[in-house]
Each structure stands twice: as structure tokens, then as C-alpha cells.
């Protein structure tokens, strides 16, 4: 049976689904179109997979469309992504041309159906060029940490972004001085998805066995795409420090995203670094491995998310939801999810990560305490129900520009 809104009632807490129904009534009859660049892989696609059906169940006409792009385009947008995150990238005139040409091609083909159009991230940002012609309300939803973007890329995108009615960023640090309204909306996890739903011990053990992971020894795990910003080599370095005192194992597991061509290169580097140690398991998981990822996290002793730049880092919330102790890089949205010392630990280096992991491995009670706090923190702040509410509020907000208090009869 498909997942329904009622299934979230108990999980999300009292009054949450009722509030959603009340709010959805206020946008009844209006449509919300989401546009991004990949149907699978990565946080954006994952969120939309759940969010769109929930909105529809609430009576909001939500749809989701994906722009078309070739490998050359995704190479450019990956470079844009890096540059916006603050990693220096040389963007040539030809690369800007490729971006413009793909935007043009999509503008030509695209069917804009929403009363409110949510455009996710830079790849489809240029579609707003159609706004003067067709009107509607346009929202640019940025999932990237743009607290210190490379100026040339930001300035290239700025004229497009300024045409939107509103922009959404995941945290205040990413806000810009823009002439359009900006809202803070954190991303979210779906507690009932394959990646997060309850899994029994037998299933967990089966997955550990499949990958030859010993359930009798501590397991440190980082679940991430193979991406330099996720610092997988830093994780290996931290593991080697911990390994001096603990007979632990390391799991580095992740899939690839269709719009991330850099992944293979990073994966090769990680495999090379791990080659001499049979206790390091580098797992490139195919799409639709969510249940296995779920089991791997549940079977782990400590979860690591040692990112050096991070748009949000939903893997942290996914682990906290399973009451796991998490050690995360003090960057981007990880700082919202990990309240240092309460819901996990924030670190700035491989050495810092090793220190915290060692403490956690030696103290089961500490692991349980931060895990329980983390679960509560996610329940209150990072579930998909809250995200649905915020998107409905965004629809209402762009219909009432400039007002700080809006009465909904």
C-alpha cells in the first residue's frame, strides 16, 4: 500500500498533519511545479520523490519535471557547483556558452504548468527567462552553500536569480544581498522511505554479511557520494588514527548522481588509499540501494560525515533518525543538525574526528545519549512534513509580497 499522510501522524507528532491539511486548503486549486536536473541521485531528487506525492495527497497540484542536459552541460554545472561552494574553478567562455545553450534548448522544449514554479539549484536557474512572457510566480530553491561563492559564477547567475519572486536557502549563512525575498527552509528526510524506515536486526546482519563486515567489531561509516567536499580521504585518515587503539572497520559507501561526473575520479583515489587495509570497505552502491544503506547505518557504531563544504548533509539527519552517534564536519547545514556535544560532535580536522570517534567507541552511554537527542532534534526540525508545510507557506508568501503578517481566513 502506498505511503499516506496519515502514516506520518504518529511519527511527526500531534497536530502536524492537521496543520498541513489546514494550510493546504488555503492553496487549493493552485499548482506547484518543481524543476530540477536529475530524477535520481542526490538529496534534491530524494526529497522531491516524497514531497510531491504528499503535496498531491493534500490537494495541491504538485508536479515535478527534469531539464535535459548532456555530459558537457553537467561537467559545466559541476564546476559551477564547486565554484559556488567556494572551491576555485576556472570557468571558460566556452563553458558559459554551453550553459546558455542548454538553457535555451530547455526553454524551447519546456512546458511550464505551475502557478508557482520552484526551480532547484543553478542548473535550471536560467528558465526564469520565460517569466516576462508567461508570468506565474517563480521561486529559486538553492540547496548549495553559497556563503562564499566564486564571484564570476555568482555574477553570471545573479541576473537570472534577480528575476525570481523569491529565493530559498537552507540556512541564514547562505543568504545574499538580493532584491528578491529570501526564505530559510532546511531540507528534510522522509522517515518512511526505504532509507529511513525501521529495519530488523536480521536484515541488518544480512547486509553486513554481504559486504563481509564483522558485526562483532566497531563499524565506522560514512555514507556519501564520492565527492571531494565530503572528504573521504580525511575519513580514511581519521580511521587510521582510531585504528591504533580500536580494532574497528571503516565503510565508505555511496552511489553516483547522474549530474556528477567527478565521482569516478574521487572513487579511484579512495580505493587507492584503502587498498592495503582489508578492514576498509569502499562500496559503490547502485541506484535503489536505499534499504542496504539503511541497514549499513543501523549496523554501524559511529557515523561520520566529515564534509569540508556542505549544502546541508542530509546523511546526518538520516543517521540521527536511527539514533546513531554522529561525528560531522563543522560546516554548512551539518552545524544545524549537530548541536555540538548534544546531538553529536562537530570537528574541523581528521585528528578532531579521530578524537571524538575514539571517545564514542569507548562510551556506549554517550553514544546512546547523543543518538537519542539527535532523534528528537530531527523529529522536530528535519522531517518531510515540516518541509511540505514550508513549501505551502512559500506559495502563500509569494502571493503576499512585502507583508509580514498574513491572515488566512
Amino acid at each position, binding site marked *: 500500500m502506498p505511503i499516506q499522510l496519515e502514516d506520518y501522524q504518529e511519527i511527526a507528532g500531534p*497536530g502536524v498533519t492537521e*496543520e498541513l491539511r*489546514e*494550510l493546504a486548503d*488555503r492553496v487549493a486549486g493552485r499548482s506547484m511545479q518543481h524543476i530540477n536536473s536529475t530524477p535520481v541521485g542526490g538529496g534534491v531528487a530524494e526529497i522531491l520523490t516524497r514531497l510531491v506525492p504528499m503535496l498531491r495527497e493534500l490537494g495541491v497540484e504538485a508536479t515535478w519535471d527534469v531539464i535535459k542536459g548532456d555530459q558537457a552541460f553537467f561537467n559545466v554545472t559541476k564546476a559551477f557547483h564547486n565554484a559556488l561552494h567556494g572551491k576555485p574553478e576556472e570557468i571558460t567562455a566556452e563553458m558559459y556558452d554551453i550553459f546558455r545553450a542548454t538553457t535555451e534548448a530547455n526553454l524551447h522544449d519546456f512546458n511550464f504548468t505551475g502557478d508557482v514554479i520552484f526551480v532547484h539549484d543553478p542548473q535550471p536557474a536560467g528558465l526564469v527567462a520565460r517569466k516576462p512572457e508567461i508570468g506565474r510566480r517563480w521561486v529559486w530553491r538553492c540547496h548549495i552553500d553559497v*556563503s562564499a561563492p566564486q564571484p564570476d559564477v555568482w555574477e553570471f547567475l545573479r541576473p537570472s536569480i534577480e528575476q525570481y519572486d523569491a529565493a530559498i*536557502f537552507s540556512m*541564514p*549563512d547562505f*543568504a*545574499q*544581498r*538580493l532584491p528578491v*525575498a*529570501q*526564505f*530559510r*527552509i532546511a531540507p528534510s528526510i522522509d522517515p518512511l522511505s526505504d532509507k529511513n524506515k525501521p529495519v530488523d536486526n536480521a536484515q541488518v546482519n544480512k547486509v553486513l554479511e554481504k559486504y563481509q563486515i564483522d558485526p562483532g567489531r566497531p563499524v565506522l561509516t560514512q555514507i556519501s557520494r564520492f565527492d571531494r567536499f565530503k572528504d573521504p580521504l580525511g575519513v580514511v585518515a581519521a580511521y587510521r588514527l582510531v585504528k591504533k587503539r580500536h580494532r574497528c572497520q571503516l565503510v565508505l559507501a555511496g552511489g553516483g548522481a547522474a549530474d556528477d561526473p567527478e565521482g569516478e575520479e574521487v572513487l579511484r583515489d579512495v580505493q587507492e588509499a584503502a587498498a592495503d587495509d582489508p578492514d576498509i570497505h569502499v562500496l559503490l552502491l547502485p541506484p535503489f540501494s536505499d534499504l542496504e544503506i539503511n541497514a549499513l547505518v543501523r549496523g554501524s557504531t559511529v557515523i561520520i560525515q566529515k564534509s569540508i563544504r556542505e549544502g546541508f548533509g542530509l546523511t546526518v539527519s538520516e543517521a540521527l533518525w536511527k539514533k546513531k552517534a554522529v561525528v560531522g564536519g563543522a560546516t554548512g547545514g551539518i552545524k544545524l543538525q549537530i*548541536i555540538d556535544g*548534544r*546531538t553529536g560532535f562537530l570537528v574541523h580536522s581528521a585528528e578532531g574526528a579521530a578524537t571524538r570517534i575514539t571517545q564514542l567507541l569507548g562510551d556506549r552511554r554517550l553514544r546512546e545519549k547523543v543518538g537519542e*537527542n539527535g532523534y*528528537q*532534534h530531527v523529529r*522536530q526540525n528535519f522531517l518531510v512534513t515540516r518541509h511540505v*508545510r*514550508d513549501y505551502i*507557506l*512559500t506559495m*502563500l*508568501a509569494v502571493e*503576499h509580497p512585502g*507583508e*509580514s*503578517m*498574513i*491572515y*488566512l*481566513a
Partner: protein
Amino acid sequence: MSFYDGWQHSQRRGRSGPEIMTTPAQEKPFAFFTETRLVVLTGRKASNLEQLLQHLTQVSGSCIFYHTHYLYLTHHFEKPRFYNEFANWVSQALQEERLAERLGAIDLLEMTSIRDLREAIARVIEKHLESDKGTVRTSPPGEEFHFCEAKSFIMPTGKVAAGVSEFLDLLENVTNDCLHFHFFEARLRLERPTNDFSQWLGDLGQTKLAARIDALNPYAVTLDELKREIVKLGRRYASK
């Protein structure tokens, strides 16, 4: 459309909820409203006190309200040292503890408008800057103060009390957002003379109870505690 516009608008349409303050006292029911909010980012940030002060004088009243009230609504693993976010930032990012304590001690209950509150905060910072000339502390990168505000959406809850007894019964089960709206927002952000409960009870002739509730300090307790306190006062002081 402001809250009041919406209120008048719905009166014209004859909706029951927002009529609470306009029909004759002996007949009018109390309609509970709730508030949900979207956080608005202003794009303004400060990394030292001069910048903080400059923005403070320019941001909206909604922004001042947000940074002095938002933490009352959020869950905490332990009681925050300050609910005033300016005080928290001054303490954590600038380590100006004396100033943080002075900002944290600004008595919100004494304020009758956001303007008063803004001026009070600015005065404390100005005084500190005057007495501390020459030392400019800057927050570490990534620890800047980001000015936000709330875009609030007010909805009727459907709970309407015809009299005091029913009012108290319903109050026991309202959400913190509802309580926050009628108690905090009503007085400071909407600049009503008192909280909505005292206003309504006073109009009903329950002056003693209205005064007792008005005298509560909502900033000293959690919202759950405040609710229990109001219900307790109601059961004790409501005249039959």
C-alpha cells in the same frame, strides 16, 4: 494585507473567528488563532558591534521581534542562557560577556512597542561602545550574526469559547504557537494594550482574572508552564 486588514475583511464576510473584539462584550466569544511562520532572510549580517548597531537601526520591527522571541518557541536540550539572540551572539561570537548579560537583561515586559525594544537594545550597545573605545572584536569567519525575520501566517484554530469556563477548557489544549500568538505577538508585535486573553476577560467583566493574567511574566517560564499558570489562575479567580 495586514492582520488587521484580514480581520476586517473577514468581518465583512461574517466569519465567526475574528469578530471577537467587536461585538458587544456579553455576547462575544473568544476565537483561538494559531500562527505558523516562514523565516525570512534579510541578507544583512554583522561581524562586529558597530555593524550590529547599524543594522539594528535599519531592520524591520519584525526582525527585532524575531531575534528576541524566536527562541521561546523552539525546543532546547537545556534552558538557554539568553533567549535574546543578540545577547547569545555577543557572548558566543564576540565573547563580550558583560554586554551579553546586559542585553539579556533587557526586560521585554516593560516594552510596549517594538520601537521601545529596538531603542533599548541600541542604547545598551551604544553605551558599551562608548565605555569600551578602542577594542573592536570581530566574530570568527562563519560566526557572523545573520538578521532574519518571520513572515507570519495567522489562522483560526476552529476553537471558539462562548464563556470563561469553556475558554479555560479549550486553553488547556491549545498549541504553543497559539499561546505565543495571543500572548506575545498580540502585545508587542501587534501593539495591543495587553495580551488577548486579558483583553477579552476584561471586556467580559472578569477584571480581577484579567489583571492577574496580565501580571504574569511570560518571559520567565516556558510556554507550557505559562499555559498551566493561566489555567490555574482562571480556575481560582474567575467570577461566576
